[in-house]
Every structure is written in structure tokens, then in C-alpha cells.
């Protein structure tokens, strides 16, 4: 698992805190993230877009998805402060980063369930 995507220390802290709820937390995050992604794509205004980016930034930072959180931060800043050019590109980057991250979290789910 690549450390450029996920902070391993955060994950082990989370497992320690959540104990038996760790698996549920991982699953909840993945569900939540699907919702945030569709909000990013379907946003009808700058506000909606900024809000979705902000929330996604918060939850991914909590889960140790540092690169994803950083991309969301850039998106939020860009929406709030401009320039708006290149936003599409940023959203695509988030899509790609999330795909990578999702695979890692699923693997983590597998690892935990098999323990």
C-alpha cells in the first residue's frame, strides 16, 4: 500500500479508537465518499461545489487519506477564490485519487474481516 495515498499511522490510530467499529467506519467512509463524489459532479452552483469539497476534505482527512484531502482543499480554495479554469481537471484528479484510495480501504476491510 502506497504511503503517498494514506497515512498508515492514522489508520492504526483509528483502529485502536474504533475497535470493533473499525470495519463499520471504513464501510461508512466508502459509502459517504460515493455520495460526496456524485455531489461534486452534480453541483449546480459554486456554493454547492465548495460545500461538497469542504465536507469531502474533512472526512478524508479524518480517515488519513492525505492526498485526497489535499486535492479537496485545492478544489475548495479554487471554487472560493478562483480562477475557475482547470476545475474540471481537479475534479478528475479527485476521481482518480479516490479510485486508488477506495482499493486500499477495501483491502483494509478484507484484512480486518479475516483477522
Amino acid at each position: 500500500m502506497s504511503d503517498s495515498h494514506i497515512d498508515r499511522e492514522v489508520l492504526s490510530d483509528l483502529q485502536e479508537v474504533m475497535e470493533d467499529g473499525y470495519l463499520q467506519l471504513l464501510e461508512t467512509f466508502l459509502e459517504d465518499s460515493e455520495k460526496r463524489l456524485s455531489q461534486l459532479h452534480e453541483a449546480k452552483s459554486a456554493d454547492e461545489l465548495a460545500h461538497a469539497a469542504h465536507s469531502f476534505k474533512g472526512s478524508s482527512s479524518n480517515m488519513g487519506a492525505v492526498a485526497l484531502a489535499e486535492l479537496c482543499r485545492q478544489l475548495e480554495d479554487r471554487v472560493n477564490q478562483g480562477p475557475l479554469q482547470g476545475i474540471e481537471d481537479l475534479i478528475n484528479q479527485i476521481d482518480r485519487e479516490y479510485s486508488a484510495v477506495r482499493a486500499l480501504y477495501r483491502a483494509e476491510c478484507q484484512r480486518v474481516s479475516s483477522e
Partner: protein
Amino acid sequence: MSQFAHDLEALTVLIAEDGAADRLLLATIVRKQGHQVLTAENGEQAVALFAQQRPSLVLLDALMPVMDGFEAARQIKALAGEALVPIIFLTSLSEEHALVRCLEAGGDDFLAKPYSPVILAAKIKAMDRLRRLQATVLEQRDQIARHHNHLLNEQRVAKAVFDQVAHAGCLSASNIRYLQSPYALFNGDLLLAAFTPAGDMHVLLGDFTGHGLPAAVGAMPLAEVFYGMTAKGYGLAETLREMNAKLKRILPVGMFCCALLLNLSFQRRVVEVWNGGMPDGYLLPAGGGEPLPLISRHLPLGVLAPERFNDTTEVLPLALGERLFLLSDGVVDTSDEHDQLFGVERLRRVLSANRQPALLFEEVLQALEQFRGRSRDDVSLLDIEVVEPQVLSPPPVIYSDSGQSSPLDWSLQFEFRAETLKRFNPLPYLLQLLQEIHGLRAQGGALHSVLTELYSNALEHGVLGLDSALKRDAQGFAAYYQVRNERLQALCDGFIRVSLRVEPDRQGGRLIIEVEDSGQGFNVSKVLARSVSEQGLCGRGLNLVRRLSRRAEWADEGRRACVEFAWEALA
């Protein structure tokens, strides 16, 4: 509760967070720290849950659908009222203006994502301390308000009870003017006045140490003694001794009562003065002019043990139209903005300048106001005019018995010898006894006056051998009473015999009083033959006795007086 128990006490924490994963994570962290958790997905849910469950702390995401955290914070703070419900905003907001918005909406702190359990625990603890502090402050504020109301109520009750006691007096007599704050009692100021059975007037202006209830409690027993003993015919000296002994016994050390007492006899035109620690009172001449100070010569009441207490009074002659002016220390001790005192000299100038007695109080208050430019509520003023005795109408004494058992045929004789004469006044006992005779009650005042006069003649001119001619002027008056006290202290022999005889007479009856002394006697026919103007200050006594009784004779070269009172059948 110990600090340890405080740390462990579980709170109910409301978490309002839009993201399911963040919510789950936060709820788990908070629950693991021992608290109960309520969760909401948006602001509206959060407000409804708050109203329903009243959690003690709220973690609130700023950006939420339906109702955002700012609005939810405002509504929760409004619902919480005076209680502090700390709100911690959950946010990764980094712009300054967004953080300011959180605070303006009522946020107390922030928690940034990613969450740190350690920091969150520390923040919850800190906020809980703040919450408790506020709760304690509110509780203490309410407690203070309750105590304050309680105190005010106690003061109202105390004042009502005291007014009942104090109104037994004669402050409303036509020759008295006074000025006192309605709450003077709680400044320790006390003003009492009452008629004696003989129609004399006893007056007390007192000032207890301290303020509030402690200053007021002593007033009650003092007033009781004052009224009780005055009504029974006791003189100033006995009343003073009793008041001092009582206050000494009941008041804590360091608490006492400055007092100025007067015994005004409008019949005999004299005033007896005792001043213990009060500012000088004044005897104001009838036509204006230099006021004569009534100086404090004693320690206040309640300081000295009974055996060391000095009840010596000064006696001054009075003339019609003269006035006695008493005041509390609120007058002379008033200070201006440079801490300079109003003082006695300024007061005397006001008194001397006064031409219209009715305006004196206003002139004093005006001078005070000009002096310091603001008014004060602990100023007591009293002004008593010397008038003809018939102008005053002492209220009739109220007797509680039916009169059916009134004794009508008896006699008795007392002999009071030197040691007794020095320290004991038998008159109240004798008068108490005579009050049992219903037929005499209508003449109670006259009886008191006559008996008092006969007794003091027997003591002063008889036993002590004082020459009443001394009393021809004001200076002689003072000298007379000084010699009187000296001789009385040195007295080792001599006596006064008092005999009372009550006989039925047709439907009514009569009382024969004989007062005999061991003195030199006097030339009865010569004294009685003097004209009224010649008798001046010194001869008034015999005339008074003759005027008030049915028959008065002097026998045994003036050593024995025999006076008769009679009454008709009672209706």
C-alpha cells in the same frame, strides 16, 4: 464532590455532523471518554434534539444541509437561556471570517479535522469546567438574590414590630418636631419619647454602633425598658441604670448605644439631661441667641458594668418658649469632598441665626446640603418646645383590671434610711400600689407630681439640708444639683418616712399622705407667704402641691407634710 468525581462525571453530548463517517468516528471517541452521545445529521435535527434532551455540551459542524451550524448555534444558545451550554464547532474552516462567524453565532471553541481524541477530551473537559463555573455563578447569584430578599423581608418585619413598640410613645405631642429617615432603625438611630405618670416627658435619642439588623436588634429591648420604666414612674437615673445593665448583658463586646436622655418637667420647668457619647444637644433661648450645649459627660450605654455606671444627670431650669434641640452624628460628621467635617461650629452658627423655630430643620438641612452638595439619610433631628403643662395632654393610663378588688381601707408606713436613699427610688413602688385604688386613677398625674415633689423636698431640703434659695438663677441651679449629688454620696444617716392611709368616705374615699424627714425643717408660713415672683425657681414645689391636692399642711416646723386626695363614688 471530589475533583476526581468531577473528572469522571458523564455528560450528555450532542454531535451534529453531516458526514456519516465523521459522525461515527466522533461519537465513538466521545462515548469512549465516558459520555452519553446524541447524534444529528443537520442543524434542524440538532435543535430539536437539544430542546428535547437538554444535553450539556454540543459539537456542531459548521456546514450542514437543511440548517447550517451557525443558525443551529444561535437557536441552541437561545434555548439554553442563562445556562452555559458550550458549543464546539467542528470544522476545517481555515478562513478567518468563517471562524469569526462561528464565534458570533455563539461558538465557544473549535475542533479541527482530522480529529484528535486527546485534544477533544481536553476540550470537553475545559468546556465542562466553564459550564460548571457558570452554573455555580448562577446558583450563587440566585442565592444572593434570595438572601437579599430574605434580608429585606426581615427588615420589614423587624421595622413593623419595632414601630409597634416605638409608637407607644408621645413623639406626636404638639410641642415635638422631629425628622428621621423611615429606615433610621437600620442606621442604628433611635428616637423615643413618653410621658411619665406625673405628666413629665422622657426623651431618648440614641445611636447604636454598626448598621443593619445588628444595629437594630438592641433598639427593641432598649425601647421596652424606656417605655416600661417611664410608664411606671421611674426617674431617668433608674431607667438609665436598667438600660445600661440590659445592653451590657445582651450586646456583644464592641457594640453599644450612644444616647442622650431628657426628663422634661413642664410643671416644674426643669430638664434633666444625661448625655453618653452623643453629639452636644442644645438648649435654645426663647428669643434667639447663643445656644447652651448639652455636653456628653458619660460613656455610651452598654459599655460599663452596672457597678461602674454613672447615672448622674444635669438639671437645668427652663423658661417658656425655650427649646431643646437634639441631633444625630449624621449632622456634624457629614463630610464634604475634601473629607472636611461639617462640625459643631457650623451647626452653632445655624442655630444662632435661626429666628423662626418652625424653619430650623430646613435651615440645618440646607446648610448640610450647601456644605457637601448631596443629601444623606442618617440625619435625625428633634426639637422640643417648653410649653405650659396644660397644652400637653398625656394619654390616660390604661388599666387592665376590672376594679372589683380595689382595696379601700388600709394604711402603711415606710422608713427609708441613708443607704437606701442613696441608691433606691421608692416612688414607682408607692405609685404602683396607689394605682390599685380606682377612685384615684383620674388624679393619677397629680398624685405622681405631688408625691414626687414631697419626696424630693424631704430628700433635698430635709435630709440633705440643701437651701432652695441656691436655685434662684441658672448658675445656682447647676451648683445646687452638684452639691445635691455630693451630699447624697456622702450620706450616712437620716431618714424619710412615708405613710399612706386610705379610708372609705361615704360613697368615695380619701388618701392621706404623710412625708416626714430627719432634716432641720423650714419656716412654713414665711415660704408660703412669698409671692409667686419671689419664689421664682425655688418655691414652685409647695405651690404645686397645694394646687394639685385637696388639702396640704406642713407640721413639726416643716419636717412633716400632710396631703390629702379624695374621690367621689365611681359611676
